[in-house]
C-alpha cells in the first residue's frame, strides 16, 4: 500500500514534469509540439555527454542539459514553427518530421546502442518492504519545486502574466501591447528547458536510446489530453491520475497492461469530453 503510494507519487511527479512544457506550448500558441519527446531526449543525451563522457559535475550537467533544451526550443520555434503558426496541423506534422530527423541525428552521433545513465542521486529508499530509488524520489521533489515555481512564475512575474494573457485571449493581449511572437519564443525556450530537465530524469528512469522520445511524447499527450489541453493545473492532477493508475495496474493487475489503460483513458476522454476533464485552454 505504502509502496503504491510512494511509487505512484514519484511516477506522477515525473509525468507532470514531462507534460508541463507540452501544455504550455499549446496554451500560448495553440499548437502541439510533437517534437516534445525529442526535447527530453536531447536533455538526456546532453547530460550524458557532459557528465559521463566529459566528467563534468552533475549539477553542471543538468544546467547544460536545460540550456541545450532551451536553445533547441528557440531554434525549433524560430526556424520552423513560426512560419507555420497559422496552421496547427502543419506545425504538428513538421514537428513530427523534426522528431524523426533528430532521432536519426542522435543515431549518427551516439549510435543506436542504448546508453545507461548513472542515477543522479544514487541509492535506494527502503522502508518496511518499500523500495524506491532515490533517483525517482529526487525527480518527484524536483518536479514539485519546478512546477510550484512555474505556477508562481505564471501568476506573479511580468513575463508569466503576459504569457497567461496571451493564452487566454491572444487578440486582447496584442491590443494591450504584448508581442505574441516574443511570448511564443519565451514559451518554447521554457518548455525546451523543462523538457530537457525531465529528460535527464526520464533517461535515468528508463534508458537513453534514440527511440526514447516516443514514450514521453505519448505520456505528455495522454496527460494533456485528459487534463484538458493547455491547463497546467489540469495536467498536474491528471499526471497523478495516470501515474497512480499505472502504478496500481503494474503492482496489482499486470505490468504489461499499464499502457493499455492509459490509452483507453485518452480515447474515451477525447471522444466524450474532447476539451478534457478540466476543459481549459489557458495557463
Amino acid at each position: 500500500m505504502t509502496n503504491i503510494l510512494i511509487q505512484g507519487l514519484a511516477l506522477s511527479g515525473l509525468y507532470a514534469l514531462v507534460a508541463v512544457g507540452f501544455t504550455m506550448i499549446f496554451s500560448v500558441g495553440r499548437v502541439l509540439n510533437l517534437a516534445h519527446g525529442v526535447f527530453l531526449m536531447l536533455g538526456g543525451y546532453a547530460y550524458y555527454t557532459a557528465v559521463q563522457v566529459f566528467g563534468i559535475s552533475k549539477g553542471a550537467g543538468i544546467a547544460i542539459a536545460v540550456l541545450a533544451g532551451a536553445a533547441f526550443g528557440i531554434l525549433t520555434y524560430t526556424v520552423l514553427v513560426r512560419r507555420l503558426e497559422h496552421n496547427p496541423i502543419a506545425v504538428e506534422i513538421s514537428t513530427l518530421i523534426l522528431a524523426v530527423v533528430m532521432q536519426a541525428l542522435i543515431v549518427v552521433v551516439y549510435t543506436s546502442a542504448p546508453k545507461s545513465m548513472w542515477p543522479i542521486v544514487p541509492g535506494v529508499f527502503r522502508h518496511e518492504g518499500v523500495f524506491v530509488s532515490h533517483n525517482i524520489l529526487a525527480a518527484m521533489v524536483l518536479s514539485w519545486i519546478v512546477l510550484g515555481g512555474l505556477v508562481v512564475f505564471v501568476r506573479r512575474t511580468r513575463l508569466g502574466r503576459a504569457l497567461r494573457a496571451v493564452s487566454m485571449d491572444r487578440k486582447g493581449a496584442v491590443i494591450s501591447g504584448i508581442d505574441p511572437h516574443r511570448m511564443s519564443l519565451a514559451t518554447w525556450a521554457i518548455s525546451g528547458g523543462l523538457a530537457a530537465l525531465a529528460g535527464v530524469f526520464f533517461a535515468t528512469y528508463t534508458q537513453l536510446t534514440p527511440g526514447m522520445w516516443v514514450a514521453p511524447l505519448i505520456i505528455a499527450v495522454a496527460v494533456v489530453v485528459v487534463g484538458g489541453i493547455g491547463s497546467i493545473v489540469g495536467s498536474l492532477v491528471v499526471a497523478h491520475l495516470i501515474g497512480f493508475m499505472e502504478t496500481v495496474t503494474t503492482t496489482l493487475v499486470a505490468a504489461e497492461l499499464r499502457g493499455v489503460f492509459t490509452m483507453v483513458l485518452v480515447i474515451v476522454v477525447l471522444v466524450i469530453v474532447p476539451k478534457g476533464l478540466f476543459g481549459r485552454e489557458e495557463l
Partner: protein
Amino acid sequence: MPLARPLLGWLAFAVVMCLVPVFVSTGTVRILVFANFLAIFAMSWDVISGRTGYISFGHPFLIGIAGYTTAMLTYHLDTPLWLSIPAGVFATLVGGTLFLLPALRIRGTYFALVTLAFMELMYQLTQVIAPKVTGGTRGLSGIPTIVSGAIPNYYLTFGLVFAIGLGLWFVLRTRIGAALAALRMDEGAVAASGLSTIRLKLFAFMTSAAVAGIGGAFYVHYLGSIAPRGLFDINFLFTILVAALLGGSSTVAGPILGAYFLTFLLEYLRPYLPGPERYVIYGMIALVVYVLEPRGLHAILRTGARRLAPLLARRRIAP
C-alpha cells in the same frame, strides 16, 4: 472533363513500371516492392487526411488490423489466402468505423491525437492480450507468402498500386472528390449545402480503410511475418505521412510519386552516405520540402511544367 490525357498518363505509368524490372537489378526491384506498399499506404492515408482534412496519426492501426487478422487466420487455422485477405480487409473496415466515431465529434488536433492513441493502444494490446494468438511481442512468422521472388512480387504489388490508384482516381474525380474537399474546408457549410457530413466521412473512412486493409494484408503475406514493433510505430507513420505530403496530398498521383521519391531518395543516398547520416538528410529534405511547399512535389512539378510550357512552345516556334 477531358479524359484522354490523364488516361494516357496512367497508361504511360503502367508501361514504364512494367518495363522497370528489365533494366534494374533484383536489389532495386526488391526496393520497389516496398515503394509499392508505401504507395498504397500513402494513398489510403490521403483519402482520409489529404481529402477530408481529418489527419490520421494512427494509420498503422488500420494497416495492422488487416495484417494481424490475415496472419492469425492463416497461421493458426490454415485459412486459405483468398478467404483470409478479404477477412483482414473486412476487419479493417470495422477498425475504420472506430476512427469514424471520434470524427463525429472532434476534428483537427484532437482527432489526430485519438488516432495516435488507437495506434499506441494496438501496440500494447497485441503484446499483452492473448499473446499465444497474436505472437505477443515477437509477433508471428512463417506466414504463407503469395508468390516468391522479387520480380513476381514486384508485379503483384505494382498491380495493386495501379488498380487502387486508377480506381481512386476514377472515383475521386467525380463530384464526391469535390464534396470531400469541401468537407476539409468548412464542414458546417457542407451541412448547410444539404449534404450529410457523416455520410461523406463514412465514405472517405471506409475507402481509406479498405485500401489500408488491402495493403496491410498483402504486406504481411509478402513479409511472411508480423510484429507489433516497427508496425504500430511512429516512424512507420512518419514514412506514410511524409510520402503522401511530399508527393502532394489531395491527389492520387501525389502519394504514389511521394512513395517512389522517398524510397529512391533513401537508396540514392546510400553510396554517398552509407551510414545512418542518410536518414538525417532524408528527413531534412522531407522537412524542407514540406515547409516550403506543403502541397508537395506534385504541385512543384505542376508549376514547373506550367512555367516551362511557354518557354518550350516559344522554342518550337522560333528555333
